[in-house]
């Protein structure tokens, strides 16, 4: 064996060099395994400024409008396992499809699109992507709201050194996050009955939520709305796009109108109470019905109570009103203000026949596009069968493109009213007819005739007499006034006409003349994916 002494100087120096290089490298390379992202931020940085709070709130709201964190597609909120095409994963498109496609108001041509088959036929299952999409979209927004509510607690805000007017503003944001959460719980209660229940107390990343019954959830929503109501920004006083007291009242009125469905108990008096609050807050009908769903309808603050705000430059997605402007079959791009139709949405003739005059000449709400379309929906999945609609048009009141219009004609600028005064008038009248107190039949008739006078372009020729004001008339009037505003399924369920034989429309239950279906279809099944990840859940009856 060669001893160290036997090494000559040069060899020693080489050894030394290698050892040195080795040591140097190991030192340089034992970099910590704690790496952090370049652009993503921790909660403490995001919420370090009042602006950060507002931007976090912007995400809570924009989860209504957008599909993800980039315009168009690219960074989805809802993973592809639930909705493989991000463009279908926004709230309104999914919600519209559940509220409209099973009803008389709409059919969709492309049956090979995920989840479409079975909608109109009322044969959906717990793996339907549209049903699952709404469910996970609602919970996504609820989870965002829960996180925001935690981050905006008084302790955290003050611990981050924010005080005074900034802290006051954040307190309002927090109430609005609670409102959005309550709205989405209302959606879940209405569609699914008995969803799992999470609040800001629920830990993120662990834990298995309990299921809540429909009646209990009703109580929760009611108590939340009542708790935030006094402190919300006053009606019509908030920034555009944000919820105010009137939005809370509107949701309460809708909640109470449908209370019997949810709890078995009528709450019509409460519905009237909150309708009155809205009506006396200064809202009036916008004079021209055909200006309701245009690219510059953010100007309709006279009638709109709470909207989802879309913008072709800043809030781009393939759902929302982009879907509602492109979706209807055959409507040329020159009318819809888009690059052209997607050929999908058509009305059943049953719905069109609810209009005494579907031409639009008298009742301006009849905005049917009939060129090349047959009135009769002979085939559920044929583009030309059934009238189409031009209710949503991506042009301004004077017919020109919106200031932020998309030159390619893809994205829409039309805002979507979740609540508008038209619905409140109808709710008032219906609650009165259902025996609620706090209102009267003459006022109700007045409200209905106000809607009809506007529909008849200021003429009273369409007005009705007191004797005509029946519950069935209200249901039909709601169809005429609110069609394609994602309300129809809830209305038909409330009238017990959604699954029963008391009202049959074309293709109800998958047959041309319509047929009764099982009562289980009044609510949707909980997604099978959630049943498997949450052992506390029990599937809705019949599914």
């Amino acid at each position: 064996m060669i001893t160290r002494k036997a090494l000559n100087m040069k060899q020693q120096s080489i050894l030394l060099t290698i050892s040195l290089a080795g040591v140097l490298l190991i030192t340089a390379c034992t970099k910590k395994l704690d790496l952090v992202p370049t652009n993503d931020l921790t909660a403490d940085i995001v919420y370090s400024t009042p602006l950060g709070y507002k931007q976090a709130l912007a995400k809570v709201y924009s989860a209504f409008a957008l599909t993800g964190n980039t315009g168009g597609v690219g960074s989805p909120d809802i993973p592809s396992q639930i909705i493989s095409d991000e463009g279908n994963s926004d709230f309104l498109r999914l919600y519209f499809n559940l509220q409209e496609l099973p009803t008389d108001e709409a059919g969709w041509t492309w049956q090979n699109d995920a989840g479409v088959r079975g909608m109109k036929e009322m044969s959906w299952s717990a793996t339907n992507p549209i049903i699952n999409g709404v469910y996970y979209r609602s919970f996504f927004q609820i989870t965002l709201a829960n996180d925001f509510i935690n981050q905006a607690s008084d302790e955290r805000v003050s611990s981050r050194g924010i005080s005074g007017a900034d802290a006051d503003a954040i307190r309002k944001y927090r109430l609005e996050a609670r409102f959005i959460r309550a709205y989405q719980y209302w959606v879940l209660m209405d569609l699914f009955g008995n969803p799992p229940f999470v609040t800001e107390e629920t830990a993120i990343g662990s834990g298995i939520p309990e299921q809540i019954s429909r009646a209990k959830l009703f109580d929760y929503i009611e108590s939340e709305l009542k708790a935030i109501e006094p402190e919300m920004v006053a009606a019509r006083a908030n920034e555009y796009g944000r919820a105010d007291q009137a939005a809370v009242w509107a949701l309460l009125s809708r909640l109470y109108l449908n209370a019997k469905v949810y709890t078995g108990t009528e709450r019509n008096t409460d519905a009237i109470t909150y309708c009155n609050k809205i009506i006396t807050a200064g809202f009036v009908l916008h004079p021209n019905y055909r200006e309701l769903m245009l690219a510059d309808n953010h100007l309709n603050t006279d009638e709109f109570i709470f909207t989802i705000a879309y913008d072709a430059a800043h809030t781009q997605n393939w759902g929302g009103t982009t879907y509602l402007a492109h979706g209807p079959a055959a409507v040329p791009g020159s009318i819809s203000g888009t690059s052209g139709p997607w050929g999908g949405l058509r009305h059943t003739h049953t719905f069109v026949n609810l209009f005494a005059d579907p031409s639009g000449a008298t009742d301006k709400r009849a905005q049917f596009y009939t060129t090349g379309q047959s009135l009769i929906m002979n085939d559920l999945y044929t583009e030309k069968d059934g009238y189409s609609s031009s209710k949503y048009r991506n042009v301004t009141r004077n017919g020109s493109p919106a200031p932020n219009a998309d030159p390619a004609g893809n994205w829409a600028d039309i805002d979507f009213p979740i609540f508008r005064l038209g619905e409140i008038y109808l709710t008032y009248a219906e609650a009165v007819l259902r025996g609620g107190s706090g209102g009267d039949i003459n006022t109700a008739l007045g409200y209905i005739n106000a809607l009809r006078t506007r529909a008849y372009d200021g003429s009273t020729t369409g007005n009705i007499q007191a004797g005509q004001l029946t519950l069935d008339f209200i249901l039909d009037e709601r169809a005429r006034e609110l069609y394609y505003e994602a309300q129809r399924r809830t209305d038909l369920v409330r009238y017990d006409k959604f699954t029963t034989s008391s009202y049959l429309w074309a293709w109800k239950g998958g047959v041309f003349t319509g047929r009764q279906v099982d009562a289980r279809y009044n609510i949707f099944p909980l997604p099978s994916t959630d049943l498997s990840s949450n052992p506390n859940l029990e599937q809705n009856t019949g599914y």
Partner: protein
Amino acid sequence: MKKGLLCLLVSASLLLLTHHSVAQASTVTGRVLNSLNQPLQGVSVKIKTSAVATVTNEAGVFSIAARPGDVLQFTYVGFDLVEAPVVSGSIPDIIMKQGMANLNEVVVIGYGSARKKDLTGAVSTIGTKDFNRGAISTPEQMITGKVAGVSITSNSGQPGAGSTIRIRGGSSLSASNDPLIVVDGVPLENSNIPGASNQLSLINANDIESFTILKDASAAAIFGTRASNGVILITTKRGSTGKVRVTASSVNSVSVVTKNVDVLSAGQFRDIVSKNGTPAQVAMLGSANTNWQDEIFRTAFSTDNNISVTGGINKLPYRFSIGYQNQDGVLKTDNLQRTSANLVINPSFFDNHLKVDVNLKGTLQQARFANQAAIGSAITFDPTQPVRVRDGDRFGGYYEWLDPASATGLMALAGRNPVGLLEQRFDEGRPSRAIGSVKLDYKFHFLPDLHAVVNAGLDLSEGKGTVYVSDSAAAGYVAGGNGGENNRYRQTKKNSLFEFYFNYVKDLKNIQSRIDVTAGYSYNNYLSTVYNFASFTARGDKYPNTDPAFPFNKPENTLLSYFGRLNYNFMDRYLLTATIRRDGSSRFAPSNRWGTFPSVALAWSMKEESFLKNSNTISDLKLRLGYGVTGQQDGIGNYDYLAYYSLSSGSAAYQFGDTYYQGFRPGGFYANRKWEETATTNLALDFGFLNDRITGSVDFYYKKTSDLLNNIPQPAGTNFAAFIVANVGDMTNKGVEFNINTKPVVRKDLEWNVGFNVTYNKNNITNLTVVPKDKNYPGFPSGAIAGGIGGQFAFINAVGGSRNTFYLYEQVYDKDGKPLEGVFVDRNEDGIINQNDLYKGKNSVPEVFMGFNTSVTFGKWNASTALRANVGNYVYNNIYSQTGTRSQILGNSVLYNTSTNYLETNFNGNSQELLSDYYIQNASFLRMDNLNLGYDLRRGFKHYNMRLSATVQNVFVITKYKGLDPELSGGIDNNFYPRPRIFSLGVNLTL
């Protein structure tokens, strides 16, 4: 790291510059031939008494500094050792015989090498002589079908396209199933570079000496964390001392498309529209007869030229090569050009106590990527319309569907002219890559059995390019004309590697043992920089609100590892290998960060036992048994264990008042994520008969993956992402591999080799849920089907079945066997057909695949062929399902062509037929990959050799499958870039 690497490079260069003296020796040259007098390339030539060594070049020629009286040792894989004394400056031709005494053959394994006879794990090596020949644009094509247990499926016929490589079926569901690839000791990151079709295409196949594939845990566990899917070690050619040798090669080829998707001819199309269309639709018909597929495909030429120089300057062995490849794709406008250079210097110092390996590879690519949307468009575009119209050049002169009522003048949602899609889009990538590594292997002066090895590597790459679409192109047309696209992209990657290990080898003769111990440390860092850009019109005007939220992003991850290995050989009969590796990954929370991955394997070399020692029939017999655990963390997010918020882009903002606010979105996170682990058991028998005229092995394996990194749904309301990668579930792969190589004829002028391998692999998912085997959970879907918006899936990954099991409706047929449209079997008998009636059917992954190759050498002629077969796999024919209906033709705003399948089914398209199992077709196939004929043109002059070869690749496919090509790694046939048949001529010249 940068600092460290710099130190190392400086010290290495200092070493190189150090002047030192070695006892005078003169250059000795010679040539090594096989028994057929053919030159043997890559033979290791070593002076017996020292470590001076070189290898032979392509002409079998070597030169080495030696003194008279030295003895040269010649070793070569599969050949008997030859020794020859040095008498003068040249020695007579050395003839090496193939034989049984190949057991001293050395195989590259992780962190060092091992004698083949000491191996206890499942290791396969493929050297130059076994490579597939012909026009090769990406290295893995050279070993397709050669190795049992390894399935390589090219992803398309595009030049340079990558491949899906699966070793023993892949061991993961949601994390990566790709093997780890290590090039000259530098592990590559498992991701692509934008602008390059495939990261391996940046390595010149001509520079590769061998592939070693580590298949079982015992062989691969030394790579611990990244070895679950096997490891492929690529070794490039080395330098050699002696005279300068120049090798030049050129391969020139022609690629042709052999088959089109069957669609209606213009005449058939006209008939159907005339009979069934509305008057408006009949009026839409044009008068042309266009075969759109002929219009987009072409015969493509390509050339691949390489020059390499090896030699020694002042005893400094080097190899330098440059290559230039220019390949056209069969899809018009597709082109790939690659220039590569490779420099290897491998000097030794201090009587070979210090060996230095410096390896530098550089590649520049220039590619134009054809718009592959044209493939689908060509299948469906109306065949009665012309390619170009005369009047007006509004859309570049291409025929397009127009709509006077639309703002752009174009019909919305109509297909665009396939030729226009190609010719009006310039998607040009200019990726580059440099891989440098320095390895210092120091044998201690005071303890020569002990080596200290430092290996440092840097893999730098840049992907960048531009996409330009003319503003007159229909695909990007905007009302007013200022549309199109003029965008750029850029991404750089820096992957750093540092390793340090000791290796101690000792023959302990007195106890008939040999030990080989390795212990070391490894650091890998993967850093990317992704630049974000706004979108621009063709004229260069910025599209509003397209500014990215951030100018760049730098995702990064780091792996730290400590590893050790013991090889113990007792009496050359009983072998033990034990390894252990401890890995830390930055992708996990500190509490779950470290994983320990052990393996142990035993082998019994029965041939060495007295009862076989003298057998003439059995020349080799070895039983191997191994068990080991490997880990997996590839294919998951870098930072998901922490909660982070990401800012939305300006086009995903929300309006409050008059201001648009970009939102902060919290990302899904999962703090408890940990290593996915795969335990593999391997039982194998290696055999050789008749002096190794017949050799082979059979391996049985069982792999169980637990804590699957599995993208599973979170209970709604408990996370910001509805699905997150968590450690839930188990999966198994079990299989058998068999390979055999025989030499039925070995004569002086005729040699015939036959090789065959077959693999059976059965994948089974055993659990996917937190609550084990939850019946509520149907499994998760995969395999998106085209057709219909919103996406539907063809597969389900569910407990009790294999990955990618078809999950479709069961079709009902009439008495003539014709499918009844929209009629499916009500499998749960509840009276309605809905998603609950989908059933688990056939599988898209073959359970059996095999490779067969044979070569005959007759004098100067050589012929070889390679065939490959997959058995038992099925493909969903999405071309049939998406286009084979009448509503495809007549149900849209414009007319579309259909698959001829429509003529068989007459489907209207008014049902949920997309999800019918009618569209599943048997895709078992037999393919001749390669047919090669070569001729060695030797003159009397022994230092000169020329080889001519002619090759046909993708010669034929035999299959029942009705679509274009049954071999689809995804199992869904749609928009497939056809694999061309390639005819090539090559010449290889060695001076």
